[in-house]
């Protein structure tokens, strides 16, 4: 049996591989400064983090606030701020389109802290930090997701198949693909879509992208798709809608938080944003909880 991923040599190599990402963070923060939104004061320790219910009650986000956010500028908040934004979102509708994706590491986050989180849920892999290599690969290869609302199945868009070739079985030509902007993208890593529990904010559901039973889905190819599944990295994503066409996501492995990502569809964003600003209303497929969302209500 072939080893699907080459063992990484040392942690140092992985960390070096990550340097471009952190450099990108700095550049991005200058090009896309995060808009001023209200956040609750938070300290460093877990006990100093404000309760999400309180944040939502005291600092509700209005549709106009959410319209200021973009996939580029949201990546420049601190992780605590990203968390506070996420907690003030609802799941919105389960998408039914192709979305462009970007993953990001939090501004001002320290590598050791993030690694600490990874270790929390990926023991064993954390030793060799395979997960980081995967993330690095992800940043280079992953281009987004394609949602099929009717079947509740999602696939990930992979642009550079050559890099994944060593870990893909069989004939590459049999992999389903789509063309985006004149470039072929392959659809791999299928996942189930459903409304489920957020692993950071229990007060309302998120849209869950679950790879645990990926092997049951049509088009599943054991290699490489198993890597995301229950016997692999146990990936589970969750997303909430920032505004129509724009979702903020959190990726977990083994239920330990790994990274944030955004999903964006220009067409939906362009066609549905005006109505959203006017009314604050969107379709909700998932349980939105029972806490009053004041500014959203007032927009309508």
């Amino acid at each position, binding site marked *: *049996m072939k*080893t*699907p991923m080459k063992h990484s040599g040392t*942690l*140092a190599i992985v960390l070096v591989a990550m340097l471009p990402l952190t450099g990108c963070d700095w550049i991005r923060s200058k090009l896309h400064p995060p808009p001023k939104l209200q956040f609750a004061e938070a300290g460093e*320790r*877990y*006990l100093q*983090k404000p*309760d*999400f*219910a*309180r944040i939502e*009650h005291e600092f509700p986000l209005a549709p106009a606030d959410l319209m200021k956010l973009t996939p580029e500028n949201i990546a420049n908040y601190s992780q605590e701020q990203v*968390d506070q934004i996420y907690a003030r979102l609802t799941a919105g509708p389960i998408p039914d389109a192709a979305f462009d994706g970007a993953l990001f590491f939090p501004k001002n986050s320290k*590598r*050791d*802290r993030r*690694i*600490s*989180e990874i*270790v*929390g849920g*990926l*023991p*064993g*892999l*954390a*030793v*060799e*930090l*395979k997960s980081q290599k995967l993330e690095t690969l992800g940043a280079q290869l992953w281009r987004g997701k394609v949602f099929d609302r009717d079947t*509740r199945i999602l696939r990930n868009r992979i642009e550079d198949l050559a890099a994944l070739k060593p870990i893909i079985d069989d004939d590459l030509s049999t992999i389903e693909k789509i063309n985006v902007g004149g470039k072929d993208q392959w659809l791999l890593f299928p996942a*189930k879509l*459903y409304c*489920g*529990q*957020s*692993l*950071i*904010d*229990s*007060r309302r559901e998120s849209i*869950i992208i*679950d790879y*645990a*039973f990926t092997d049951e889905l049509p088009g599943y190819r*054991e290699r490489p798709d*198993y*890597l995301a599944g*229950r*016997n692999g*990295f146990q990936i589970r994503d969750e997303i909430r809608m920032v505004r129509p066409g724009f979702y903020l996501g959190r990726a977990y492995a*083994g*239920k330990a938080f790994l990274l944030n990502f955004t999903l964006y569809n220009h067409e939906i964003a362009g066609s549905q944003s005006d109505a959203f600003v006017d009314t604050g209303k969107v379709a909700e497929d998932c*349980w939105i*909880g*029972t*806490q*009053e969302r004041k500014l959203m209500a007032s927009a309508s």
Partner: protein
Amino acid sequence: MERGVVIGGVLISASFLFAVLLNNCAGDKGPLPEADAQPAPPPTQATAPAQSPVLDNPGFYLGEATLNPSERAGREIWYKSTAGNSRFHTYTFQQRVGVLIDWYRVLRSDERSDRFAAWGIINDPGCCVPGSQDCPAKSPDDTYGFDWCPGDEQLLQFVGREGYRDPACDFKDAPADTNDVHNRTKDQRQSSCDLAFGTSTGALGIRKFPNPRFNRERWLALNGTAANWSGYNGKLSNDKANSDSHVSRLADGSVEPPFLIGISCGSCHIAFDPLNPPADPAHPQWANLKGAVGNQYTRISEILSSGMTPSDIEFQVFSHARPGTSDTSAVPTDQINNPGTINAIINIHQRPTFQDEVVDKWRKVEACPAGEGQAKQGGTEACWCEHEGKCWQRGTRTETVHHILKGGEDSIGALEAIQRVYFNIGSCAEQCWVNHLTDLRQIDPQQRNFGQTPFDIGQCRRDCPNFRAIEDRLQDIMNFLTSSETHATDLQVARENELKKSNPRGTYTRQSFIADLEREFGAGSVARGREVFAGNCARCHSSIAEKDGGPFANRDFAAIDAKTGLRADWLGNDQATPVSGVGTFRCRALHTNHMKDHVWQEYGSETLRSRPADTAVKEASDGGRGYYRNISLLSLWAHAPFLHNNALGPELCGKPANAANDFYRSPFADAQGKALAGDAVPACWKFDPSVKGRFDLYKASMNDLLNPDQRVPKITRFSDDVPIAFGPRLWDGKEERQVVGFSVTIPAGATAGALGNFQHKRFADDLVLSALRPDELHAQLNKSLGEKDGGTVFKALNEVRTEIMRDPSTMIDEIRKRPFLLGAYSSCTATVENEGHRFGEGLSAQDKKALTAFLATM
């Protein structure tokens, strides 16, 4: 040294701990019902019910005959209200906490007769097995394999559909109390719909609700028939070498079951009436049940992990609570393994209260003072109005309160203690408290859920309608819990009831009762027992101190309080005793959830938290913990085994017909702590709620209590090997290969508590520090453990780190080689669960008999 390198290489040892975190989804597959070749026809088109749904059958209402309207309302809420926790027990517990419940395994109708023996839960007399005589449901497919219960004719129409009208909407509320400031001018109670009754599942206190997301076509594709759950709860592989043999689709959140399952307070508190036990405990009648005795047989821990397999770490750590006990700090985990009995609620009017306790809480007001219209969460003073005339103000006052929980926690008021029970059963979990829990996977102290944060009562009131529905009726529940339903149950009455079954005119007088006891325990034993009790026990086990009631030696402990008609003496003073003083298994006393900054902080009084630590125990016991309140001895004959964990006395077991549901594991050990084997293992006692069964159990438990040297030590252990793989695996058709990472196995026989109490976050952090800042760590360890032990632990940490960096798979062995590490990083190091409370061991054999005889009369 680069911290990341150290973490990457060293913290793997933390994976030992992450065992607890691993989410090896699984479900145990029991025997399946015979598949019905003809799937049930689709339910008839749902329509908004014009008529009121059936609340329950007449049998349920027989129990309220002697109750006033408020008590009656409280009873129905206690028995049926889930306060919206069905979402928690169907989705949130599984997906967020990571423990799977196989509700079908617990509630399948074809095993109704075995349900009590397996799970200790009590069958609802109003329900029936589909297809049985007179049962409205003719096929298990009609009910998705569950019992048919009153109200299901409406409920079943809404499986897979929106629009169900909960029977609670038609609940007959008690008249609003106009003395209540909130109801002075009009009834302002939250809608009763938010009590969320659903219908019975067939087991008392476990309620079902139609799942509007259920997709019948998908269910049939997965399972074949409506009643067959094997596609959902069956394992993906039958090959034990394949990790998929642990996995079922219970872990697949995309599969929506037909029902959401919730539980009421009654799920744990409803029990067989000691005065009128059922002829067959698997098939009780309504007259055999009482609402607040506390189910002494429930295996609620096993129920809540019924979707896991015995080789899952979660099952081994959590599913060993004795029948009748529950670790209520397992979900809001404090990482202290400490199951405790379900409190018997008896003669509360006589229960001691404590004056002048400093209590910071919310109190009802009609309006907020000017300038305090909004809650200032996190502040000490706040006021909030749900609407005009219905406000609460928070502040600190001295009050007279009860001490409710094992260590005296839940001490801000009796109503609030009832209120918190609803969080124990999962209510308002999503809106109010799951975000405040510790995530065992989170080892970064800068991230949310690294540890607990305090639940906020004001926020919960504002954001959770189910909270308000219960809060607005707390007095009704309190009135039920102080009603005649909760009066003490005397053995004399129980025996007379037994007599009347064969001789309806028979009587069993006090004289006959005493005579029978004296025939068994010796002439004059009851009178002598009273003297022994007065001289040795009453200082703790009397609620009337000598300064108030005169010398114990002259006391009639059975005297009646003319005001209440109850026995004046509650037979317990509820005073907190340092755990080292009573010497019983101390893990429960070290419970942390009511400490400052912990999840139930707001339910503990400041007085509770100001209690000094017990300096005689080696673990931390600050913040008001380190105590047990003593208990009431009322109706003791009916409440064996003894101690807060039911560990003193024979071990109980159900011996179910379905061996897959036999959860008994022998805890018996020799004096060195090694598990006993073969004939040396005392047999477990089969569940027997009969009058004789209870009395036999009482006598055996009293014997153990008064003869501590004869007790066989009990230490709960892993019953199965627990393999844990860290990293991706591939199944090649013959065997599973670890692609990267490694595997470890925690062997059968490992002490369950040692793992459950292990503070993996602190251990992981110290391993890192041992490489990064060794001097700092060494100083810390010296300070906390003393120089000798600190040095030993420091050296061991360095050795362990070195070894597991070389070969991570040796992690368990390396730690086991150094058992003192488990002690140094454990929240509780106690192992023997039936030790302590040696009071009375020096009595003569005859006095021990006498005491046993006397207490049987109480």
